């Protein structure tokens, strides 16, 4: 979804550069975290009926020289738009920003978003509001992110910064030149697991997905891998049967991949395998034993008493026994673990 348009910035694409600051020629690049996009889409679904687009504030981090911007978070800001005028709840924006900064002190205001790809006079007005001195992003340019949310079409996102334009001072307030800048969607390792589960629901009719266990996800991954292997095998076979067009690049790639298979001695594998499988099985067995022990101990704590006023000493003995057994399991487990560490 990160757009593949190419950008050629002849001059530095930064807009209003502060006078005296050393101008860097590096282009501005924007990376967007998925939760920001998710939040924008959610907001777009919750817009008032009579409004085509909704806007909100983008929060994130900016590199020291201001050329790299990460959009990490965002929140919605109520606004009303008619043919003649636009009204943004500035007070709301300010208070919400303060609330967000309390939770995430490292994030700063970087710009704003709108849920339509159109740029109009109001966009310029809002852009100037976000880029102004004081509450805005000055001296850095405000980033404007548009996410098209038309149903049935692909979701397109674009990022812009702006340069002041206008003949007179009055006109300059409600006009600006939007300069497109490249952006990409970025997600880290931790987010991958979340995205994985979320996207596993994308082909389902009810758009929902229960949490899957480790074993299930393993099964699915293996299934998928087998599927891909089958496709490659079929292609190779077709080429051998002269039914499909051969490609030397693909062949080379496959050969490189195949040569990655490790060459190890069978005895080594056998030894490593046996050492590990024993550890794993022992730990599994002990974990289950411990669970039983805990359950037993818990039952003793309540069950012995429900028999009515029994001799307290007898009960004590029973429970001591439980404790000893527990300790035995404990010791065994410790020994096992040392062994595991040695291996």
């Amino acid at each position, binding site marked *: 979804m990160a757009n593949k348009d190419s950008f050629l910035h002849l001059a530095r694409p930064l807009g209003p550069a502060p006078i005296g600051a050393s101008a860097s020629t590096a282009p501005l690049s924007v990376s967007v975290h998925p939760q920001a996009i998710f939040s924008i889409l959610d907001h777009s679904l919750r817009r008032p009926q009579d409004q085509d687009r*909704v806007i909100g504030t983008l929060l994130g981090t900016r590199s020291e020289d201001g050329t790299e911007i990460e959009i990490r978070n965002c929140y919605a800001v109520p606004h009303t738009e008619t043919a003649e005028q636009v009204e943004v709840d500035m007070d709301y924006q300010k208070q919400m920003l303060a609330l967000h900064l309390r939770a995430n002190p490292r994030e700063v205001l970087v710009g704003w978003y709108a849920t339509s790809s159109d740029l109009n006079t109001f966009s310029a007005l809002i852009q100037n509001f976000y880029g102004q001195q004081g509450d805005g992003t000055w001296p850095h340019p405000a980033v404007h992110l548009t996410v098209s949310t038309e149903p049935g079409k692909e*979701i397109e996102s674009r990022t812009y910064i702006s340069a002041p334009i206008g003949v007179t001072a009055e006109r300059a307030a409600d006009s600006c030149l939007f300069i497109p800048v490249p952006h990409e969607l970025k997600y880290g390792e931790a987010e991958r697991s979340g995205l994985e*589960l979320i996207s596993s629901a994308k082909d389902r009719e009810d*758009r929902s997905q229960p949490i899957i266990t480790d074993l299930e996800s393993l099964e699915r991954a293996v299934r998928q891998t087998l599927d891909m292997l089958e496709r490659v095998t079929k292609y190779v076979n077709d080429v051998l049967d002269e039914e499909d067009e051969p490609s030397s690049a693909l062949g080379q790639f496959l050969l490189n991949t195949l040569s990655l298979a490790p060459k190890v001695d069978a005895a080594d594998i056998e030894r490593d395998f046996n050492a*590990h499988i024993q550890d794993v099985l022992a730990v599994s067995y002990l974990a289950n034993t411990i669970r039983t022990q805990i359950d037993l101990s818990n039952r003793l704590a*309540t069950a012995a008493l429900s028999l009515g006023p029994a001799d307290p000493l007898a009960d004590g003995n029973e429970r001591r026994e439980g404790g000893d057994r527990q300790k035995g399991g404990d010791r065994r487990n410790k020994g096992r673990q040392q062994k595991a560490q040695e291996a």
Partner: protein
Amino acid sequence: MADATKDMPIKEVQVEALVVMKIIKHAQQAFPTIATGSLVGLEDGGKLEVTNTFSFPTIDVPATDGHQQETAANLAAGAPRAKANVVYQNEMIKFLREVNVDANNVGWYTSANMGNFVNLNTIENQFFYQKEMNERTVALVHDVSRSSQGSLSLRAFRLSPQFMAAYKESKFTTERYLDCSNPCSLQKSGLRYHDILVELPLTIHNSHLLTSLLHQLPSEVPKQKLGFPPNLAALLQDQNTPQPPLFPNYDSLDLSIDPFLEKSCDLLLDSIENHHTELNNYQYYQRSLAREQAKITAWQTKRKAENAARAASKQPPLPEDEWQRLFKLPQEPSRLETLINSRQVEQYARQMDGFTASVSTKMFAVKSNLLPGES
């Protein structure tokens, strides 16, 4: 009608994808400290829909030595029930209402590390939420370490009604005095560690727009038929070369075993040690109780003998219940800690079980792949 829906217990939890991503982001930023936040959403019959979330403010404690760091961690874990955060939460919800977000608090979330979330803090937070804020709230637990191992670990919990009742009266003793008519709370309620936390089935739900976005991730499907690349370099650089899909995640095919196993063993051993300490405490209590009881019985027989002698000499008998003033029975230690600890041990054991299951599968697969024909 309204009453009917109110009384229906919450049976499942549906979490919006946005909430999942926000929790992951917050938990990961704060790792290894615990991240907590509030959940908002709606409730539909027996289904609790979590539609948005926000994190609680970070607490700045000048951490210089180890002790203070501990307090910082405690503060972070206790954040959901801190007074300042209740104010923050109400304010945030007020603002969210203005942009049509479901302004209804439905619980809180916390991050965990290797399943170590069953502790007093979690219990107290959830108790606070279920008692003070709104009965129909859940706790979402996101396990950062386990999620980085493969599939996402996000679970929903509630305190069981029996536990709520017991915790309200803070009766976690077996209360067995000599001829005491007090209800023996733990046995009477039959509370066991299984009953503390109730796990609810959790589903993840995507909006239509999100589904359409996900179909474009991580790379869009090429629009025209692709030709073959002229050479290897072109293949590697080609923009249309598909990136590995988000789902299924091939990380789950990873073969690293030992770090996880060791860590889990350590944690399990720690909990068992705790359990042992608790047991020892209880044994100590029982021994001292038995000692006192023996003393009381001795005293009573002595008094009875005295009374018999007095009756024989026609003197009025001495009162027989003076022992209650003379002897003081030791206070029974609370069993809550033991209960919670048992639950934690069970949680670790199950986690281990699940892990060993998938790991042994993978190991057999690798072995038969490298040594074909042997198995």
